[in-house]
Every structure is written in structure tokens, then in C-alpha cells.
């Protein structure tokens, strides 16, 4: 079985800016994959190279085993891209846009699938509205719909939830999750890290055009982030506990790996004569992972 996406040693410069620097990445079929990184890290360039909108200066990219340059027709038929910019064609209605997009992919009669997409994205009532008349959120939904008209096995969403309301996010993720469960490979870029954390099975982090972390979401969280026991107390925390802890605003944060460690921790604090006023447990989160990877990329092993 060929990889859904295979990116090998891909480099790309824009003027003196190295947008992509020997990027290697492989996404398996059926994965829900996150591509994270700060602005300017190269995420959109990488997606553009995959979609044939940008030509890589070196290296090769393929979609479902089809090279994006030499076998571009097959590669593009297997790929659906939701662009980051909120673009639309003001001449057409929603349904016309989707029918035309289907035609570009060689599909003549696509009405039942178009109806299904419209339904799933909450667009049915707007089907015959002109694109100009739609709100930003509605236009975003149409962009997603346009990427799906040819039922691509690989779907790439470039910041699909930037500036959209809660309702659309939920509708969108429900639909994308369903497509993923049905076997579609999903690649997602986003700045909303909690979204990536809850959706993506595996994550790559890009910085200055290079992959600086690549692992399953669970392992990244374990490696770069821990559970923390946060508490406010009267009295001194035992000295040996203070060493691994951080203090801010009257709160102590004590890291721990397993929940079994919580009871002994509390017992020792109590034994030291401390009275606990307030207590909460913080879960590892991707934001912490992201910040640590971006700050200290040298220590982040790339696998």
C-alpha cells in the first residue's frame, strides 16, 4: 500500500528565504495528521508544493503514489485542498461553483454527492445564493465543499477554522472526522493547538522550513509535557518537592507522570504541616509541547 503522502528531501527558496529545507515526511493512508508551526514556517508552501501550486526546487512529492509533477493528473485527482485564503468566484452561485469544480475533475453528473456535501456542511439553504451574498463563515464552508467534490482520498485543510465561529467548527470537524473514519486521509494545519491535539493522531512541527518534531500526538505530549498538580497552600512545601516545581502567583506546580503519584505527593505535603487551600490537576497540553519544541529545537529528536 502506497503512502497517502510522501515528501522526500523537498527544498524551496523564495528569493533569499529558505521556505522549505530538505523536508522529509510520510503520511499513511487513513491518518489524521497535523502540520504545525509558527507563521512563515513553511506549512502553506509545503501544501502548495503538494498541490502543484508551487514547484519544489529539489526533492519529490507524491500523493497516493503519484508524483505531483510527472503524474500530476492522478496526483491532483487524489488530493483535495482547502486553501487558507478565503477565495471565491463572485460570478456564480454555490451550486454552480460546485458543479463547475466537479467538471474540472472530469465528473459530469455529481448532483447527489454535491447535495450530500451541502447537507453535511449546513449549506443546503444557500445552494442557490450567489457567492458574494454569503458571510465569511459560509464562504469557508463552500471552500471545504469545493475541495471535496471529487471525493479525494487525501484531504488537506490549511487553517480551515481561522476566524470561524463555534458552530462551523463543530459542523466541520464532525464531517471531517466522519470522512476520516470512512478511510480518507486528513492533513490539517492550524494555530488552534487544542484542535490539533484532539483530532490528530500524529503531528509534525515545522520551523523555518524544517521538520523539528514528528511523532504521534500521545508520544509528543508524553515527551515534552507532563501532568501537573497545581496547588495553593499555607505553610512550606517540603524542600525536595520544591526542586522539580514551579511557583507563580501563589500557586505551586508539581509535575508528575502517573496518577498513582498524586496520593503520596499530597500525603507528604500534609505530613509537612501544609494546609491545602486550592488544588487542580493540569493535563499535558500541546501548547506546552509546541513552545518547548520551538524554543529548544536542538534537543527535540526527529524521528
Amino acid at each position: 500500500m502506497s503512502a497517502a503522502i510522501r515528501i522526500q528531501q523537498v527544498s524551496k527558496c523564495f528569493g533569499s528565504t529558505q521556505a522549505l529545507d530538505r523536508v522529509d515526511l510520510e503520511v499513511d493512508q487513513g491518518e489524521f495528521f497535523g502540520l504545525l508551526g509558527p507563521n512563515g514556517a513553511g506549512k502553506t508552501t509545503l501544501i502548495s508544493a503538494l498541490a502543484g501550486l508551487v514547484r519544489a526546487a529539489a526533492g519529490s512529492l507524491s500523493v497516493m503514489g503519484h508524483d505531483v509533477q510527472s503524474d500530476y493528473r492522478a496526483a491532483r485527482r487524489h488530493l483535495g485542498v482547502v486553501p487558507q485564503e478565503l477565495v471565491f468566484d463572485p460570478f456564480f452561485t454555490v451550486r454552480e461553483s460546485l458543479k463547475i469544480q466537479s467538471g474540472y475533475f472530469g465528473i459530469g453528473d455529481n448532483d447527489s454527492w454535491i447535495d450530500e456535501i451541502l447537507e453535511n456542511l449546513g449549506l443546503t439553504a444557500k445552494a442557490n445564493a450567489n457567492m458574494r451574498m454569503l458571510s465569511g463563515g459560509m464562504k469557508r464552508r463552500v471552500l471545504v465543499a469545493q475541495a471535496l467534490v471529487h471525493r479525494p482520498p487525501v484531504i488537506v485543510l490549511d487553517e480551515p477554522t481561522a476566524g470561524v465561529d463555534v458552530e462551523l467548527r463543530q459542523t466541520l470537524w464532525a464531517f471531517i472526522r466522519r470522512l476520516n473514519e470512512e478511510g480518507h486521509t486528513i492533513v490539517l494545519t492550524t494555530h488552534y493547538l487544542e484542535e490539533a491535539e484532539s483530532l490528530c493522531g500524529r503531528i509534525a512541527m515545522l520551523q523555518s522550513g524544517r521538520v523539528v518534531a514528528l511523532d504521534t500526538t500521545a508520544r509528543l505530549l508524553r515527551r515534552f509535557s507532563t501532568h501537573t498538580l497545581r496547588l495553593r497552600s499555607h505553610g512550606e512545601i517540603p524542600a525536595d518537592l520544591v526542586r522539580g516545581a514551579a511557583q507563580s502567583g501563589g500557586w505551586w506546580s508539581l509535575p508528575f507522570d502517573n496518577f498513582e503519584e498524586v496520593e503520596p505527593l499530597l500525603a507528604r505535603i500534609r505530613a509537612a504541616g501544609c494546609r491545602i487551600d486550592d488544588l487542580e490537576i493540569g493535563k499535558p497540553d500541546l501548547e506546552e509541547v509546541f513552545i518547548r519544541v520551538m524554543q529548544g529545537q536542538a534537543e527535540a529528536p526527529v524521528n
Partner: protein
Amino acid sequence: MGHGFSTLLYKEVLRFWKVASQTVAAPVLTSLLYLLIFSHVLEGHVKIHGIAYTAFLIPGLVMMSVLQNAFANSSSSLIQSKVTGNIVFVLLPPISYLEFFLAYVLASVVRGFVVGAGVLLATFWFAPLTFAQPQWIFVFALMGGAILGSLGVIAGIWADKFDQLAAFQNFLIMPLTFLSGVFYSISSLPLFWQHVSHWNPVFYMIDGFRHGFFGVSAASPWLSLAVVGVCLAVLTVFTLNLLKRGYKLRA
């Protein structure tokens, strides 16, 4: 040619048809105004190749409309798509550069034909017109439209902003079409300007097109066909090469 080509052609035709008052009715009205003014001033004073001035002018106006609108169609569609960003909708699908070229150029030809037919319908009441050799009318309208459609593709891809496209249109396309013998016969020009006009390919498009109506022209229609054919071939190769390299479209 695949379904991608026919859909892109359909979309390009639908695009101008949806705003037909701007893209069809307006240029027809402009041509009608030219006819009313020039024929009012010159009818009865000027005869060209033994043809009354108004009759001589009508085919020139028709062909000028074909050419200018063919250029306007591909160039404005591409620049709008580039500026608004919706060009990605045609760059993401499996459409080859050849299909891309043919769809934009053919849609330009269709727009040229629609406007040209509109101008003919609006103006032929004003003078007795003949259709001596209609095959030339068709051939030159088709090739001229394709040439200006290709130029429109080049200009639309090259220009990053609307004012750059306007410069291309105002400083190249307009002088070439206005100084091509639409409103006069180049035989009436001083010798120097006659020679200059013979270097303007649009002259041959207008002259050959007019030959189809009256059976007489300044140059032999075969010479015009050769010049226009070479221009079309050169522009086609040039434009296809731009598209193949992805010039300004696929960075």
C-alpha cells in the same frame, strides 16, 4: 480534450454571459456610436475601393469589436482570478496547460463572435452590405479572435495589478486596432504611414475580414492569411511555453 477543458470553456463563457450588459451590450453600443458619428461626417464625401463609406466602415467596426473583446475576455478573467485568488480553483484540478490555453482562447473567440454579431446586427441597417466571400469573414474572425485571446492570456498572466493590464490595453492593443484601417483605407495614407501600417498585424486581420464582405481589399487575402497565420502560430507557441513553465501561476 477532456471534461476539464469543456468545463473551463463553459465557465469562461458563462462568466461573461452573466454580465452581458457590460461585456456584450456596452461594446455593441460603442460601435454603433462610432458608426453614427463617422458616417454622419463622412458619408457622401469618401468612397473607398468604390464602396460607400458607411458600408466600408461596418466590417471594420465588427472586426475591431471581435478583436478588442477577445482580448478583454481572457485578460480580465485571468487578472480578476489572480487578484481575488480564485485562480486556485483552476490550478488545483487535473487540467493540462494545453487545455487551459485552449479553453481561455476559445472562450475569448466566443465572446468576440457574440459581440461581433451584435455589432453587425446593430449596424447593417445603415448601409447595403454584401457577403461576397463569407469564408474569409469566418476565417479572419476566428484567427484574429484567437490571436487577441492569446494576447489576453499573456497580459492577464503577466500583469499583477489592474493598472498594468490597463497599460497593456491602452498602449498596445488600442493603438494597434485603431491604426489598422478600421476607419480608413491605408491606401489613403502618406506612403511612409502606409509602410508602417504594413507592419501592423491587425491591419491584415481587418483587411482580410473586409475582403470577405466586398471581395476587394488593400492586400491580397492570401497574404493576410499568411501574416495572421504566422502571428497565431508564434503567439500560440509563446503562450503555451509560458503556461508550461507555470510563469507567475505556479511559482
